[in-house]
């Protein structure tokens, strides 16, 4: 059982003095949340490979280390998407990676938190399915079309291989290599290429099919049931601002005449006026760094398939800047100034031909 085996690994690490704390999912009544554990006796309480992702683990690490580096040696068990988030948030100065070891694994995917609540699944059942290179039909959209379902070298420190094999460990960084060495574990190999390739193929097809079309009208229709609750933003790990620009109501307060003028000009307006502005504005802020964890979609109380918006547009934007968030070592496009880029867009706005 992979979970048991991981737990044993953690206890071992505690005993060898390699770690002083571990952050991993733990079961709650209807779901799983992250738990921070400092004693090996408590390791039993966790389920390292959980079937639900209620929060993004990197977001939790951000909370722990944002102000100051981790004071204890912390092992964090993160899914590949979370470890990419981790890497991205380090670039944004939101996580201090010192003293943290990240372990990630061939991810079976996770089930939508609400579905899970009414129809729970044993964690090991999901793992069982990928052992033979398959994957469950129950998992979330974002997981089905995940670009990086397996640990990525250079992202995080230790990888756990589960596809087409009995569990094997391998290192993703020098830090991880050292760690596995100290644990006395020989690094193993497994062949997950076909499994990953299958995801990517599915992803390509999905993107082609699910792309929101129809321009401005299309996006209005897509968002038509939005409540403006901002849950998607709250759950987004890349949206780390303390106060969102769109929650500063001072900026969007107007005298009544303003509204009437707009309504006159546009033959009626929809209220509130800043709803699609919020989503488009958010896309501009986080699009180039969107990891594709899909938590925005899980958080939507109106079941808007938001991953179709953020995931696909994010992916397109990243292509434009030739940037893979959480995978590339260079800075995100919003933080880097290049004299020479994006010439293909020159002249599109009616400037020089």
């Amino acid at each position: 059982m992979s979970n048991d085996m991981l737990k044993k690994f953690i206890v071992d690490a505690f005993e060898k003095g390699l770690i002083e704390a571990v952050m991993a999912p733990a079961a709650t009544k209807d779901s799983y949340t992250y738990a921070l554990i400092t004693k090996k006796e408590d390791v039993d309480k966790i389920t390292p490979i959980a079937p639900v992702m209620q929060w993004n683990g990197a977001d939790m690490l951000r909370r722990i280390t944002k102000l100051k580096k981790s004071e204890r040696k912390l092992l964090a068990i993160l899914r590949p998407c979370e470890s990419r988030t981790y890497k991205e948030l380090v670039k944004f100065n939101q996580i201090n990676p010192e003293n943290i070891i990240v372990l990630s694994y061939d991810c079976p995917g996770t089930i939508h938190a609400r579905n899970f609540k009414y129809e729970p699944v044993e964690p090991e059942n999901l793992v069982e399915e990928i052992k033979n290179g398959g994957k469950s039909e129950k998992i979330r959209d974002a997981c089905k079309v995940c670009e990086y379902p397996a640990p990525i070298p250079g992202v995080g420190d230790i990888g756990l291989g589960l596809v087409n094999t009995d569990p094997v460990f391998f290192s993703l960084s020098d830090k991880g290599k050292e760690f596995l060495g100290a644990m006395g574990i020989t690094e193993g190999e497994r062949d997950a290429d076909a499994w990953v390739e299958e995801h990517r193929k599915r992803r390509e097809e999905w993107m082609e099919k699910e792309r929101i079309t129809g321009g401005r009208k299309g996006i209005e229709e897509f968002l038509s049931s939005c409540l403006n609750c901002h849950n998607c933003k709250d759950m987004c790990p890349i949206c780390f601002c303390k106060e969102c620009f769109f929650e500063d109501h001072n900026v969007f307060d107007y005298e009544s005449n303003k509204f009437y003028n707009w309504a006159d000009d546009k033959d009626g307006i929809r209220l509130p006026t800043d709803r699609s502005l919020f989503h488009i504005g958010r896309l501009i802020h986080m699009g180039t760094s969107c990891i594709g964890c899909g938590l925005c979609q899980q958080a939507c109380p109106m079941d808007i398939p938001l991953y179709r918006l953020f995931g696909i547009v994010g992916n397109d934007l990243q292509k434009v800047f030739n940037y893979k968030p959480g995978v590339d070592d260079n800075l995100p496009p919003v933080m880097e100034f290049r004299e020479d880029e994006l010439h293909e867009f020159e002249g599109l706005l009616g400037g020089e031909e």
Partner: protein
Amino acid sequence: MAMKRIGVFICHCGRNIAGTVDVKRVAEEIGKREDVAFSTTYVFMCSQPGQKLIEDSIKEYNLDGVVVANCSPTLHERTMRNAAARAGLNPYRVEIANIREWAAWPHEDNPEAATRKAIRIINATIEKLKANASLEPLEVPVIRRALVIGGGVAGIQAALDLADAGIETVMVEREPSIGGNMFRLSETFPTLDCPQCILTPKMNDVGGHPNIKLYTYSEIEDVSGFMGNFKVKIKKKATFVDWDKCTGCGECLRVCPVSVKSEYDLGMKDRTSIYIVNEQAVPLKALIDQDSCIRLKFEKKVQEGKIKPKKNVKICSKCADVCEPEAIHFKNNEEIVEEEVGTIVVATGYEVMPAEAFPELGGKYPDVITALQFERLLSPSGPTAGVPRRPSDGKIPKSIAFVHCVGSRDPQNGVPYCSRICCMYTIKQAMLVKHALPDTAVYDFYIDIRSNGKGYEEFYHRAKEEYGVNFIRGKVSKVYKVGDKYRVQGVDTLTGRIVEVDVDMVILATAAKGSEGVKELAKKLRIPYDEWGWLKEVHLKLKPLDTPVGGVFIAGAAQFIKDITDSVAQGSGAAAKSLGLLSKPQLEKEPLLARVDTEICAGCGRCKDQCAYGAITIDPIRHVSVVNEALCEGCGACSANCPTTAIQVVNFKKGQIIRAVDILAEVF
């Protein structure tokens, strides 16, 4: 507190605005606003009576804010703010609504639209103004020392003027001697002075001036600090010679067995590995070029483990053997020194495009050279003692062709601008050839002769009338070698015929560009530059010596290619600008700077990466951005990139801007 008693002053700007915009109607419309206490028009707001009108109205109507609707704020914002200050209103409660460039001029053909647009611009400006804060200028202390970067004629002039005025001045030059490109020239146009004769006294003055600290063979490593308080790290490159001991006697040069192309002579002559740039160098010191010195190359290879030295092997030390003062030590004496200064004058000069960049004009042939290289061949102190000879075989050329505008005026293949000095120096060179070799035929292929300086046109006529230079109007397109000669394939656009001529040498007047490495230097200084390496002034007409970084000035060809007359004038100008700052005990700084709302700053560092002035750091304890007010120039790049607008420029806050934009963006 939002303002409630705003005064709006609409300028006619003669007919510039009033000819198109119905200013009376604008004043009436704006006057209807609840928050506007007074609105009026006047023919010239910038005139003394206009300013008086504003001052009197502020007092009479107890105004708490003022909008002046006139021209671009770059012209009269300061004027209007000063007027308000005289009447007791905080100057930062004055805003300019630019209705001349934005409404009157672009809509000359549609007065109605221009009038409505003017109203809207003023409304937007009022909205922005209403949330303006009252501000007081910042005060910063001043270090009364100056730095001059570049030891060409502009830098020399700037340094001497500063030093003579009692300012301790540091000069940094990357070559081993000061003198710059001017010292390479044969003679100067149109007076035919010998630059060595007129520049050496100034160079010696610099070398011996009690107020000048000279670092040659040195480069700027790093610049930090701000106007009045710069910290500069200077790298003194390795000379392998103790300059305190070196007397410049030149004995070492006579024994050095190595021969390489001389940089000073632009490859027209060889020098030894240990060398003194020229006989009149300041300082007159020897240095070793580590890339060619046998001993240093050997030692480097040993160090890298590429070779193992055999015992008792004697490596060349001929120079050290003859050096009486024992100055040559072969030790890498590179060192970084730090200087603190209040102002910086950048006078980095120019270079010309190499002949090799023009293969169609035969740039790869040895006898096709740039005009700057030809200066060395024409110089009495040059490799051929002023009688030009072909670099390939040393023969006296019987015919020479000059080609103007090589790379200049050519946005497709070179630079778009006119390099300004080429017409005149080419004419001068043609004359000098005729002086030295009266029987040599000279063909000068030009497009236009640009002789717009004192005595320049007369100089051109002398070349035509007295010297027998052949001028042919048309651009050369190809030069190629046929036997011993170079075939120049040109055109005479005036007679409309293709012209071919075989000559012995071809001189290309290649385009001038900013000096190599100037972009890296500009980045360290955080001053802007263009793609050709010219440093950008703040205003071409009115602030040609200023940069956007307070306390940093530019002079000479660093700003744009210019002749000696203009370079010297700018050197003096930049010195005067520096003196202006250094003569004050404290400097005032515009308080329109970025401020951080630490409550909402997430410390992500996006602002820090955008700041061109290095003014932002992340506080490691509070994990928020911190702005260094002395460094911040208030450009707003940080604010534009902050996802949550935690960092904003005072009086340009998001509410102010969005409200203004809302008004401007309404359907017309």
